[in-house]
């Protein structure tokens, strides 16, 4: 399964919960803490953590889309 991750950057409130949940996929900018998406198509073993991050985001700034099927 393919996962497409998108960030709605103006919504981000720099809570950093995504970085705690999925540090391989999300980071934060040094100056204002806004999210940095490290991998928009993370590998399968990251999917659960990425979905958790999207759930936990207090600003609903992380969008996760199933691209379905095998690549």
């Amino acid at each position, binding site marked *: 399964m393919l996962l497409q991750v998108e960030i709605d950057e103006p919504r981000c*409130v*720099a*809570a*950093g*919960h995504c*970085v*705690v949940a999925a540090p391989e996929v999300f980071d*934060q900018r*040094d100056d*204002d*803490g*806004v999210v940095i998406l490290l991998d928009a198509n993370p590998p399968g073993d990251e999917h659960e953590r990425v*979905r958790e991050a999207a*759930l*936990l*985001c*207090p*600003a*609903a700034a992380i*969008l996760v889309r199933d691209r379905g099927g095998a690549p």
Partner: protein
Amino acid sequence: MSDVLVVGASAAGLATAESLRRRGFTGSIRLVGDEAHQPYDRPPLSKKVLSGAWAADQAALRAPDALAALDIDLVLGSKAVSVDVRKQEVVVSGGRRLPYGDLVIATGLAPRRLGAFDGLAGAHVLRTLDDVARLRGELLAAERLIVLGAGVLGCEIAATGRQLGLGVTVVDPAPVPMGAQVGPEIGALLAELHRANGVEVLTGTKAEAPVVTNGRITEVLTSAGLVTADVVVVAVGSTPATDWLEDSGLILDDGVVCDSRCRAADNVYAVGDVARWWHERQARSVRLENRTNATEQGLAVADNIMGADKPYVPVPYFWTDQYDVRMQVFGDLAGADTIRVLEGDPADRKFVAAAEAAGRVVGVVGWNSARGVRKARELITS
């Protein structure tokens, strides 16, 4: 009949429903909300929506397609009026009965009102999208704003008022803004921040009575004298929205009292601002009014509905945006005896500090230091 009935269609209620689906729950879910709007987020109301940076629909919690994909029965504009926990049935306005397998109470808060100001033209509270539309409409035509209450909400409204070019006075009987959330030292920094941005900060001051001229508030009499204003916002805190549970047999004590699993009774859970649960790690009952708790507790309750039987033991987190400062707090600052700066300098409005009680770190706070405060969170000992 729904397998899970969630009463309250804001962040905590929606998070519970969404987490259930994410965990693979295949039963029916009904989400009931008293407002007519699609589920929306409250933190932006006092900031981006009030300032006009966002249109109201940008506060939506989920896009319509994402909401539809959850396969939940969303019942909006319907207020719960009572519950019979033996019959497992909620009654909503209009008399409709909603039977359930598991009930999740997520009705949030109601703003506390001040009797003398209630219903007066020019007086406002801010909790809902409709509240913010009314308030914004009046602020655009106003020159002077008084905010009664210097909690998180009051401080944010004051900052937004300044951003809109209004003269702003904040009135609060406490010695510093947000003292209950951040303690005296950080509160003093906040007072300084508001004064530097042109706000008249009347702490240690009591609002006595409104002065009404031609049916509208024109002034407020305070213990520090008369203050002129076109608009007054009453932001003196909130109370858990539990009126509909008075005769339910559930234990109510500043919130719906729950065990460590956020369970109020058999097949009944509470989440978000309305829930008071036993925090096992802190060994006390806790109720949190913040956005992150709404989501995390929703996740925890979804897990427990699905049989996880896990205690909910979060490290509290909240943030606030005021002027050019984003403040983020993990843990508890209010009970600390010492604030120790770890990096940066409060004078530069960029720092991370640890809050200590009897030598233990009980909380951390960051101003404009998102990365730093996240890392410092690990210092908190439980």
